[in-house]
């Protein structure tokens, strides 16, 4: 796709406005993308990035505003139309079909003849040309997250897009895979493809993007050339104030062991799951231990074993505060002082249709909210209100339904609920996933405070940056096994990144390849 230089902008949007009943998602947004430009759209959660991209991709219709495609005014009423124009989108939550093979997934998105062998060939061509290795015959559910993303990208590329939208593409990749993705994107841009790159990771944007548009509260707060800015100045545009800095205290001197996992092996019956084998781990009072890894390597299974959602035959495999709890239910484990923040907020962390007060009761009822089995609503409500105030949860009050909160706010609420129970052991999965920068840094600071007051904390996260910021020790999970632990200050992103592909020294058996992104 060669480009003529005096070309009109590939995409120009003016005054886009989209109002939802409770919030103005987009308010007069302008954006211009030139051919061959990698353009970042930067903003916190709820800033309106996703809404804007859905408008461009025809998923939702704006209330006001105009779009120009290569100089021509257009309306994009459906994703199909967007693709006809030459717009491709890689979603944050992939739009792949798990039970179908790679080539079938691609075929679904490609108009024209239904010829799978020929299409497989084209997939292989594109994948070698852009360095995106993937086997067209494999079923999607057996692929790692990184491979799935490649399939999404290949699927877009086969349509010869002239504008490629990527929504938070690196949140699921190892550092090495991110670098590879960037190479691919640069190559595409050099061929004239425009790229809209949505992210809140400032360093990535600096490294990759030519231009950036910053959104806050549905409005454009600035455009800039990332290479001429510092992460600090961009953060200020994004959140309107300086980013608070996390102070990591001295590493704890080794309190009592609050969580011990010994030779935990647990086969899974789920064909899409991961078997755990030979897992050993200790978390002591006053330290934060982080588990890094690409998702789908056993995190879910390990969490279920720790939380008690999946009771174990071996009572000794999990011990809390010295008590073997392998066969304990979550309630009995919580009675020992464990608190747990699952990855899914709606459905596991909170019940969508219950109010915030009722959601408080679900786990915090031990905090004096019951009297002979009857609920003391006053106490529960007070707790909910305290939590809302202390953790700055933006909501309509303690009586609003959990599902009415945005993802980030609900997460603050859930983390707050668990922290306020003063746990002896706190287990968190993806504590800041999808949470905006300001709130994430607040959650991290709170975790550090909690650690300093003597709580044992285990964090499972895919965001390495986050783990390096708060953890005293880091271990890596790959293909259901756990690496040895590393003191954070004695390792680096590079080493942990390599470990994430299962290659730590004396890794038990190389066997089958882990989920490498």
């Amino acid at each position: 796709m060669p480009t003529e230089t005096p070309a009109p902008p590939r995409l120009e949007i003016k005054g886009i406005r989209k109002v939802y009943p409770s919030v103005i998602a987009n308010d007069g947004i302008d954006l211009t993308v030139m051919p061959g430009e990698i353009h970042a759209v930067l903003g916190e959660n709820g800033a309106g990035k996703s809404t804007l991209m859905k408008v461009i991709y025809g998923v939702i219709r704006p209330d006001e505003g105009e779009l120009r495609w290569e100089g021509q005014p257009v309306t994009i009423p459906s994703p199909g139309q967007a693709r006809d124009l030459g717009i491709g989108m890689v979603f944050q939550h992939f739009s792949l079909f798990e039970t179908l093979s790679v080539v079938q997934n691609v075929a679904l998105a490609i108009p024209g003849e239904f010829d799978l062998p020929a299409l497989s060939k084209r997939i292989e061509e594109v994948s070698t040309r852009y360095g995106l290795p993937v086997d067209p015959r494999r079923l999607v559910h057996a692929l790692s997250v990184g491979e799935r993303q490649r399939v999404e990208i290949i699927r877009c590329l086969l349509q010869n897009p002239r504008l490629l939208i990527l929504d938070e593409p690196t949140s699921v990749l190892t550092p090495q895979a991110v670098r590879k993705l960037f190479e691919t994107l640069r190559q595409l841009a050099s061929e004239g493809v425009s790229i809209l790159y949505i992210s809140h990771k400032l360093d990535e944007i600096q490294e990759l993007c030519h231009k950036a548009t910053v959104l806050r509260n549905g409005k454009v707060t600035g455009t800039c050339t990332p290479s001429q800015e510092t992460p600090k100045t961009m953060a200020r545009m994004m959140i309107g104030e300086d980013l608070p800095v996390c102070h990591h205290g001295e590493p704890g001197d080794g309190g009592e062991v609050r969580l011990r996992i010994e030779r935990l092996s647990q086969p899974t019956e789920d064909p899409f799951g991961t078997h755990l084998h030979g897992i050993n781990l200790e978390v002591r009072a006053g330290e934060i231990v982080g588990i890094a890894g690409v998702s789908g390597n056993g995190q879910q299974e390990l969490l279920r074993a720790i939380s008690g959602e999946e009771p174990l035959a071996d009572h000794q495999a999990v011990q809390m505060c010295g008590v073997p709890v392998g066969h304990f239910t979550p309630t009995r484990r919580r009675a020992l002082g464990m608190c747990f923040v699952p990855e899914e907020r709606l459905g596991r962390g909170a019940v969508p249709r219950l109010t915030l007060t009722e959601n408080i009761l679900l786990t915090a009822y031990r905090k004096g909210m019951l009297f002979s089995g009857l609920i003391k609503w006053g106490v529960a409500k007070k707790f909910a209100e305290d939590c809302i105030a202390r953790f700055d949860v933006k909501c309509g009050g303690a009586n609003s339904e959990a599902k009415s909160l945005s993802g980030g706010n609900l997460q603050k609420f859930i983390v707050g609920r668990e922290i306020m129970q003063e746990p002896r052991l706190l287990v968190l999965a993806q504590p800041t996933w999808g949470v905006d920068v300001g709130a994430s840094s607040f959650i991290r600071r709170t975790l550090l405070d909690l650690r300093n007051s003597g709580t044992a904390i285990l964090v499972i996260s895919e965001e390495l940056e986050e783990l390096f910021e708060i953890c005293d020790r880091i271990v890596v999970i790959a293909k259901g096994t756990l690496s040895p632990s590393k003191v954070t200050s004695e390792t680096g992103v590079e080493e942990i990144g390599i470990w994430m592909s299962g290659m730590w020294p004396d890794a038990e058996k190389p066997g089958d390849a882990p989920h490498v992104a």
Partner: protein
Amino acid sequence: MGLNFISSILFATVVAGTPLIIVALGELVTEKAGVLNLGAEGTMSVGAVAAFAVAHHTGNPFLGILAGMGAGILMSLLFGISALTLMANQVASGLALSIFGVGLSAFIGKPYESVALASVEPIRIPLLHKIPLFGPALFEQQGLVYFSWVLIVAVAWFLYRTKAGLVLRAVGESPVSAHSIGYGVVRIRYQAVLFGGAMAGIGGAFMSVFYTPMWVEGMVAGRGWIALSLVVFATWRPARVMIGAYLFGGCMIAQMFVQGSGVRINIPAQFLSAMPYAATVLVLVLISRNRGTIRLNSPASLGQTFLPDA
């Protein structure tokens, strides 16, 4: 006893399994698109009575089949409007349709109660039907029996060899994803539902015009429900639907022969009558208990209402 006896059991088994195959394959396609239509029993009943009425008045069984099919399509259209357009709960809509259909068929069928139709001559495939043992069962049957075999191959081919089938499966697996890559989820689901309705109608027509051939209230007798469970126990695979249907048919016929044979056995008749249902469920559960194949073949969005972004 002897060859003739076995041959007639085989023949009756195929006949008894045929409506199940046709109805279950229609439901299978519907469910593969992610729609759970529990209305098969009602749709079959209405199809049966409509087919019977038309065949009775015109004297043409073929027109009867068409009428059954038409009635089935209308019934499933009702379901579609309720569950797809108005986005009502699929389970509730389907159950309501079943109850409604059974009642409606009884009402329409009042004047035809216990009227009999002339039985229709089977289609004999030259020479082949003379093969001992299998000949009559396989090559001396009603047209709809041959149709059911063609349907198995056609449905399997459609689902696994054509793009339209791939799209249908994709819609059933993840309507949100299918929508986001530009497919009309509701339109495709409508097509699948109407196909399912047409097949249920034909299945009903087979019951009243060819199988009995007469109209009796409640003659569908739970076959719609059996067809529904066949789909699930066959893990949404056409060939297994056939196995299940013939298994059910075989047990049904076998227990009837046992009850009618005058051999004295100390088993209550009700138990024997329940055998086909129990045996079918048991065998299908046993052959399909691999969780992997269930996860891979069951439509993930089954029964979920699709609501596109505003």
